[in-house]
């Protein structure tokens, strides 16, 4: 045994106070043993604990297997409105029309181009603002591709007169 172990061994001399020890023992053995007295309640709660666990597992399984019917039963939203078939039919019934009304080049302005795309018309007419790269206008324009464009030189001549 080395010196350090010898010193450690001397710590065995540490002893508790005798009076404290006697008082502590009296207090302990005179205290009620709650676990022994409540053996029935301990067993009852142990059984209830396992029972609750099994019941919860069963409920979870039941919910997993039949969740769609439970959702229909308890959901505040009626399932008719969530019918995917109905939603698809409704989506197909929407009249979505996208028309390319016209692409035109103005000869007088070689850089200007005018492209107009009409937005989807949901059964009503809308005035479409053309998107122009170099022409800014605050008034709506309607481009008609069926009518021929007047010659810009003729128009300018007419205005100058």
């Amino acid at each position: 045994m080395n010196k350090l172990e010898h010193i450690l061994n001397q710590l065995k001399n540490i002893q508790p106070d005798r009076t404290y020890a006697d008082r502590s023992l009296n207090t302990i053995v005179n205290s009620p043993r709650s676990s022994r007295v409540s053996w029935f309640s301990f067993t009852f709660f142990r059984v209830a604990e396992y029972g609750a666990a099994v019941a919860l597992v069963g409920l979870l399984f039941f919910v997993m297997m039949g969740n769609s019917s439970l959702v229909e039963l308890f959901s505040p939203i009626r399932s008719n409105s969530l019918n995917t078939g109905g939603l698809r039919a409704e989506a197909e019934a929407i009249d979505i029309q996208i028309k390319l009304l016209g692409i035109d080049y103005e000869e007088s302005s070689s850089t200007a181009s005018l492209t107009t795309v009409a937005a989807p018309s949901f059964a009503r007419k809308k005035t479409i603002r053309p998107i122009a790269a170099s022409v800014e206008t605050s008034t709506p324009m309607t481009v008609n591709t069926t009518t021929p464009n007047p010659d810009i030189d003729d128009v300018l001549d007419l205005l100058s007169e």
Partner: protein
Amino acid sequence: MIDGEDDIVKSAIAGEASAFGLLYKHYQPRIYRFVYLKVGRREEAEDLTHHVFMKAWQNIENFKPRGFPFSSWLYRMARNQVIDSYRTRKAETSIDELDPDFLKSDEKTEHSFDMSLEVKAVRKAILELKPEHQDVLVLRFIEDLSVKEVAEALNRSEGAVKLLQHRAMEKLRTILE
């Protein structure tokens, strides 16, 4: 381990206060010493030791021998009690607060005085160790438990206990140097 400990424990489980008294008288000084060497203050060690035995008395039917002495169960409860006390309030240990009479030596020679100083230095060094190192050192070298019993008390493998013992001794030597 007390002679006929299994029967005494069975009697204590049945509610015989005298049987529990026998266990208390045999193990209380050891548990007190274990706790005292970890917390460093006598009043605190007394309180914690009292709580350990109170819990032991109230939960003794949960004790399952499994081939280990009753002390392993008590040491485990004592260890948990000390950990709980660390959690509830920060441990403040000073060498000045140590009880100067905690060692009772019959020898009054000059050598014993020197040894007492050395023991005090070791005592202080133990307080600076990690709790798991304290546990192993106290149980192995002061309480003379086997590696197997220490492993059971600390809920560790025997290999882990041997490793902890080696590291604890190294650390203790380093602190003392």
